[in-house]
């Protein structure tokens, strides 16, 4: 019963029809890669304030460098438990799945993504996992 509910939630979140097995499989593979990437422990916890400051002086929460598969967590991230898991998943999809930022969940364009774009969009994975784990 639990599995049925989970499958239907994944299906609706992936915006697929009941016969779209390919998209479900793609989602499963993506989540498996994401899980393995996080298990590989490539998260750097000690990014310096200087490294976490943009040229415009903005303090960022986390960042990933294009040539280095490491998630760098900044001091700001440690003070924000409400978005910590969201940020880790978001950054991990950049590193392990090669996602881009097509749209964030709070943007109008997020609800306008077509049925394949969520697979390329980092925030879609955070939203999916947040929805699958509403209480923890």
């Amino acid at each position, binding site marked *: 019963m639990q599995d049925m509910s989970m499958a239907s939630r994944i299906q609706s979140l992936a915006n697929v029809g009941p016969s779209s097995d390919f998209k479900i499989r793609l989602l499963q593979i993506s989540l498996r890669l994401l899980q393995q990437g996080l298990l590989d422990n490539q998260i750097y916890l000690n990014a310096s304030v200087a490294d976490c400051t*943009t*040229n*415009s002086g*903005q*303090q*960022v*929460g*986390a*960042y*990933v*460098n*294009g*040539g*280095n598969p490491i998630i760098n967590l900044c001091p*700001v*991230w440690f003070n*924000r438990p*409400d*978005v910590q898991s*969201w*940020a880790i998943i*978001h*950054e991990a999809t*950049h590193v392990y799945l090669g996602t881009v*930022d097509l749209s*964030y*969940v*709070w*943007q*109008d364009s997020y609800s306008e993504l077509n049925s394949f774009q969520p697979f390329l969009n980092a*925030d879609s994975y*955070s939203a999916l996992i947040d929805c699958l784990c509403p209480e923890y």
Partner: protein
Amino acid sequence: MSRILILMLISLCLNSCVKYSNISSEHDILVDFHSNNKEISLSDLTIRKGRKSLQNKYFNLIFESALGGGESFLGYTYRNVHADTYRGRFSVVCPDKSKIKLSVEEVLSWPSTVIDNDTILIAPLICRNYQ
């Protein structure tokens, strides 16, 4: 020689391209809508990544922390999206069915007054002023 240069350029590009996440703060505010917008009810308001409720005669708006982000190349930021400056995080449907989109920053800039130790933001006339 040219291959080495190309490889160096590719390496430089890869290592200089940074994706970063910024995090907006949570804002929990009380707003007096009715003084200037008598026709607007709570159901006419939409908050993306947040909650709304009625508290006495005021609207309690909670904008939750949200992840935004940007990208930079060779230290130059060419894209920066922040959840508090995005127009559309908060929207109001007017009586004529038009939709007014506002950012969190715009809402927080409304004038305020203190009543019984609570800070109340006073919404200006929205449906005509912001169109």
